[in-house]
């Protein structure tokens, strides 16, 4: 990789490039936050496994899905630092929501346009 231009640039004060600041206040207790997140994820996983033994039913499915989404959101927000980004909504929207929405159009039609009943 060639750094010739860039090494020069860094001395120029970077006035033409907006910088994204990461919220520095949280820096110090990050380890604690990670630990708590980890604990929360563990507890939710235990609840999930327990719930999966309940008799099948719509409400169990809903609980399980909500838990999965909550866990995924935790990983995204804390471990992937989306929460600490300057514009969390922009990241969430462009990386998760839009591709999910585009994919869902496909899935909806695949489901809707299924021919016959799938065999065993």
């Amino acid at each position, binding site marked *: 990789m060639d750094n*010739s231009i*860039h090494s020069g640039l860094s001395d120029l004060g970077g006035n033409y490039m907006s910088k994204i600041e990461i919220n520095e206040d949280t820096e110090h207790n990050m380890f604690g936050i990670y630990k708590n997140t980890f604990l929360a994820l563990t507890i939710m996983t235990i609840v999930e496994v327990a719930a999966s033994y309940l008799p099948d039913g719509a409400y169990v499915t809903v609980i399980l899905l909500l838990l*999965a989404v909550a866990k995924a959101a935790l990983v995204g927000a804390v471990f*992937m630092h989306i929460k600490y980004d300057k514009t969390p909504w922009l990241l969430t929207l462009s990386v998760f929501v839009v591709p*999910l929405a585009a*994919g869902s159009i496909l899935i909806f039609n695949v489901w809707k346009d299924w021919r016959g009943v799938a065999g065993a």
Partner: protein
Amino acid sequence: MNDGNFFRSPKRMLGTTNAAELGLLYFATAFINLLIAGTYALLIRTELWTPDPIYFDTAKDYNVAFTIHGTGMIFLVVVPLGAGFGNYLVPKMVAADNNDMYWPKWNNVAFWMLPIASVFIWFSQAPIGWTAYPPLSILMPGVDMWIVGLVFAGTSSSIGAINFVLTIWKGRAPYVKWMSMDLFVWGTLFTSFLVIIATPVLTAALVMILLDRNFNTVFFSESLSNPILYQHVFWFYSHPAVYIMVLPAFGLISTVIAKFSRTQVFGYSSMVIAMAGIAILSVSVWAHHMYTTGIDPFVRIFFTSMTFVIAIPSGIKVFNWLTTMYAGRIKLRAPMLFALAFIVMFTMGGITGVYINIIALDLNLHDTYWVVGHFHFIVAAGTLVAMFASFYYYFPEITGKMYDEKMAKLHFWFWFGGNFITFVAFQVLGMEGMPRRYYTYPEEFQLWHQIATIGAYLMGISIIFMAISIHRGLKSEKLESLDDPFELGSGYDYPEPFADYIKREHGEDLVIEHKLSIWAPAGAFSLVLPFLGLLAFTEGGPFARGKALESFSGSLGGNIFIVLFLVYLGFFFQKESSAHIGELNPVDKYREGERHWEIWVFLASEVIFFTAVIGVSQAIKWNSLTWPDTNDVLSVPYTAVLTFVLIISSFTMATSLEHVKNGDMEKFKKYLLFTIILGLVFLTGQIIEYAQLAGEGDVTLADNATYPLFSSIFYLQTGFHGLHVLVGVLFLGFVYLRARKGGYSKDNHTYVELIGLYWHFVDLVWIILFTVVYLI
């Protein structure tokens, strides 16, 4: 820029990271591929001169010819040409720093995947049509190799697309404003978004075919599942793919028309909005390829409406071009002639397209030559013509010389005439009911077939004129000035190069220098090894359908390829991990402090990939009558432990990164190692799970499996995820090696951050998978 020696030095061709040079390599590769795919076209047309066999002995040989022709033209000619122009033009048009792409090394990797893809595709000789519909594609030989080729081509364009997005988004000089960029930059940007969104879905579809062929899964089985499923997934990629081809052409042609009309593009912002509209709408029109499949009527109405809507922005663009010319003074040099041809042909293609979007008409015209005429008007007569126009327009800039105008005009007239004759003949044949993809036909079609064949030969001859024009141009004298080679009153006018700007503003002299990298192409080539291994395991012989599972131990060739790859990998790790950090790290000081879009864009494409894989699996599940209770067939507590392992690994990864940020290198390395070990534990756990399931129980892919569909989606989802974990572990191992050699520091740990994000993402996917696969 081109000093002529470039094509004489294999080392430079292999190792170049210079976008302009890679652009030339794209052109050269695409031109060679054009000759090959064109030869196939002529063979096809020769065969159709009479209803009797002339060249091809069997229908299958004929099928091979049109498969290779179509796949080649789309994936190895037109798409690469877009990437070639992108490489050559985009860094200049956005005054990217160093006049290069954002990731020069990856740019090299992306290019070298293309010749690899070409070789696989040319040699596959698959007889399935470029659309590869099952059940045919599951039964025929050569398809595995064809798929491997397409995966290489797709990966190449995905890497290229991410690189374009980053170059335009982040590499753009601060003084290049969005709404003053050349329209080609916009075209490339939207195309790149489409590639990023759609290509992973194609990969998913192709891998499902591969699994159906070799591992006894039943995704597209006629009796157990739904072969039409493939068409949805395939066209979800392949309709956007037609716009992936045409959007860069829109951009190129806008510039040529404005230049040769000696005015500005009319309606600049409406051009940008139209392209954005096309890009967004193009993911919701795919089922117009499936009107005759007995599709759900509700779905059909939705798609016919959306398709009519997407024709509107294309129409807007045509009117803008016409207005641009009307407002200007036209000069008819070869580029302009081709540009005019583009407008005519694209309009023909668009109008014939609107016809087949009328369901009542498509019920008759589907799978006839009408459709073949439609897309040839758009792709061969349209998109390719736009590429010719721009090729001639930029020829002086690329070579410093002028092509031969007379020959170029002959090229134009023969090409344009040939296009028109052939494709109009196609439309007529279609209206009369001639179905596509047959190597014989009833007598009454002969006249129009012969007309089409004559047109095809005119096109073939035109390429000879093109070659002569280039050849004469290269032998001619250097032009004195490149400011305005066509005497139009204005030249190529790119924005001021970034280095010049720095010099003027800050008085600092920056040297533009493009380093050679031999590891980049070596990396691309090394990826051939595991795929050759896969092919050895799967193709023909004892590894035929369903036997691949048993044959891993049995295939000597396959094992040799895999071992070679591992050896290479070890060597590469050893070598690269001790390289100077500046060599390796693509993110330099200039971009520091900004968000790491490179990984986020990649993750976005991963999100759509897993949405497709998980979503399709769910759709299969919802439509099945018999579905096992997961608690009976899988071990939930066992997997819960694996889930727990992955969650800990996310925690250790995050902790590790925090330590390197604080400069605590020992703890950084320790937690990194933990993460790797946990990743390995997870993988081992999954292998054990697979082994147990394969041995006994209901989740098998054996011929007499109790739950073939459940098993298919189980292995698809967990398998793809496992592959991601494996890749993650490899990258983590690499980072760890580097870390031990002191490669990272408090201020320099971008790679750790990137791999960390990837790792957490893989964990996130597993959290979802654990619920949808094991719990509900």
